[in-house]
């Protein structure tokens, strides 16, 4: 089994036009086998782009096609509005890859979903998306780096280290149930803890690889969850082991202030929770290979 999405998931791509990122990645997702059933564009309702019917709104797309997931890659200034539109249309799973959404927009949308749209899960923003190996790929992950069949669930804050980790597993012949990129922004819609809980509940996921990075306290919260609720083995790598303190490393998520949020603090918390901690993505793959071998 996979978590959050599978071969029955029907995707609507929000903000589709012949030259959009949404179309480019939507077509790649479709080529992977994902059911891309609709696109939206307020000015192009009624069009068909590359065989994908376009609707003026998400609500129409849902009513006409039964879409139950949405994919958002619109520019930052339109992203918050797009997420809310999907939630209002009752879409249960929304993937937003947009990078550079203002933090205040993210905080407002997150809390709006929690309060008014508890049936909608937002993945991202600023994330690579989700891939259920062999079944469904929503987002920008190159599908050929994932290997179907399990038994590993992958969750990552960083996008490109997510790819690296998938690749390390695949190279070693270790399959994945689902890879989930939660994104590196300050207020992600889906947290490590949400994904870890889903993997713990998924019978086909037998071990979890978690990729964190410096800054914030999401990894420490994950460590608490793992200690109290996880029975499955977890391997973790935290990017930024050698990052200097007080510097913003690229995105809002990755900043260390004082000793809080350092890679060491996170690695210590995870080790104390029984997690096998690796020093780099390659070592994480090797340690996971050992665990999978022992699972038999």
């Amino acid at each position, binding site marked *: 089994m996979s978590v959050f999405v599978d071969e029955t998931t029907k995707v609507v791509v929000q903000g589709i036009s012949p030259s959009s990122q949404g179309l480019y990645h939507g077509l790649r997702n479709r080529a992977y086998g994902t059911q891309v059933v609709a696109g939206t564009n307020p000015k192009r309702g009624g069009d068909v782009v590359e065989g994908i019917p376009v609707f003026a709104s998400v609500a129409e797309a849902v009513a006409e096609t039964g879409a139950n997931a949405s994919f958002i890659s619109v520019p930052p200034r339109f992203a918050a509005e797009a997420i809310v539109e999907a939630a209002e249309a009752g879409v249960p799973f929304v993937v937003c890859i947009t990078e550079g959404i203002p933090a205040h927009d993210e905080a407002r949308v997150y*809390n709006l979903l929690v309060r008014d749209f508890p049936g909608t899960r937002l993945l991202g923003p600023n994330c690579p998306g989700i891939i259920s190996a062999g079944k469904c790929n929503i987002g*920008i992950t*190159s599908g050929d780096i994932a290997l179907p069949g399990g038994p590993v669930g992958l969750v990552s804050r960083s996008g*490109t280290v997510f790819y690296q980790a998938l690749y390390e597993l695949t190279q070693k012949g270790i399959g994945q149930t689902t890879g989930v990129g939660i994104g590196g922004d300050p207020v992600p819609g889906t947290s490590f803890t949400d994904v870890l809980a889903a993997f713990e509940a998924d019978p086909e996921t037998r071990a979890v690889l978690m990729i964190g990075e410096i800054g914030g306290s999401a990894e420490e919260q994950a460590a608490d969850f793992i200690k109290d609720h996880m029975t499955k083995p977890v391997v973790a790598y935290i990017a930024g082991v050698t990052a200097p303190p007080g510097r913003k490393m*690229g995105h809002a998520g990755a900043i260390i202030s004082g000793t809080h949020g350092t890679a060491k603090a996170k690695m210590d918390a995870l080790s104390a929770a029984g997690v096998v901690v690796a020093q780099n993505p390659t070592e994480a793959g090797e340690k996971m290979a050992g665990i999978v071998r022992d699972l038999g």
Partner: protein
Amino acid sequence: MDLYEYQGKQYFARFGIPTSPGAPADTVDEAVAVADRIGYPVVVKAQVKVGGRGKAGGIKLAGDSAEVRAHASAILGMDIKGHTVGRVWIERSSDIAHEYYASFTLDRSAKKHLCMVSAKGGVDIEEVAATDPGAIARCHIDPVDGLTADTAAALVAEAGLHEEARAQAAELLVKLYTCYVEGDCDLAEINPLILTTDGRVHALDAKVTLDDSAAFRHPEWEEFAATETLDPRERLAKEKGLQYVGLDGFVGIIANGAGLAMSTCDVVEQVGGKPANFLDIGGGANAAQMANALEVISSDENVRAIFINIFGGITRGEEVANGIVEALGRVEIAAPIVIRLDGTNAEEGRAILAGRASDRLVSVPTMIEAARRATELAQGATR
């Protein structure tokens, strides 16, 4: 982007937050003119984006124009923790009865805004938090609901602000929240927030960090960006839209995504190298962006080898390869380049690079091997 104190105060003024009358000055004569205009006594304050200015002698009281002249000439050009003072802020001196603290920031673990108010202001608030946590009143604010006047009033009372300060402080707090939200701040902090001997509450300092992601809806931020002082390498990178942090090693790093860039630094360090920088070319980077990145890295004379680590998702391998080829034609790159390319359209990219392969441009299949190779090449070049 962090603002200077004077910019923070100017930003506060847009939202009606009271501050002392004052103006910035870049020369001694300007400082005297400002002081004469606003009236004595005044405070001459060094404008640097670093704490501890007072202890370093960067904040002085002046009773007349001769004193302003003396202090401004001492402070302008002064070095405070590696920051050279190029501008002072002159403001009317306040008669302080009490010093408080107020701030808004995002609490990432609670996913809500956090307001902190304390009657113990004017000192390092982190020290207060460590030694006397009860002295700070805290309240999480749901961004959907915002901060109400009632909540603000309850907070200033809970923090133990003096009775005569509370009504004004609560009103100021609501304005500060508006500034924080509508002004797209990551941090809006006043320390100290003061009650004057004649019963007025206002901001004596301003610490504001703006959310760079919101710049598209704040054209007024351009004047702040213009005064930003960066390391020359960082300025060049910023102009080209690259995320760059200068480090002190000798292996130049280019990667796509902040996580992979950090991870690349980690691996280089683990195989015995030292990263010269962190550089994230971002998602969806094209050929021109890769060429820009190589240009920035090449401007750092400490770089002995360059490690390009790309795992394409939204970034396409052929674009990366074309960018490298373009850069080789455009910029003189002294250091050898080691590249590792995987992910979206990696094969197309590798094919393009294969046509250019030499001892100056080496393709390596894995991240660890590439880190080793780049480190070896860099160390060979240093010897």
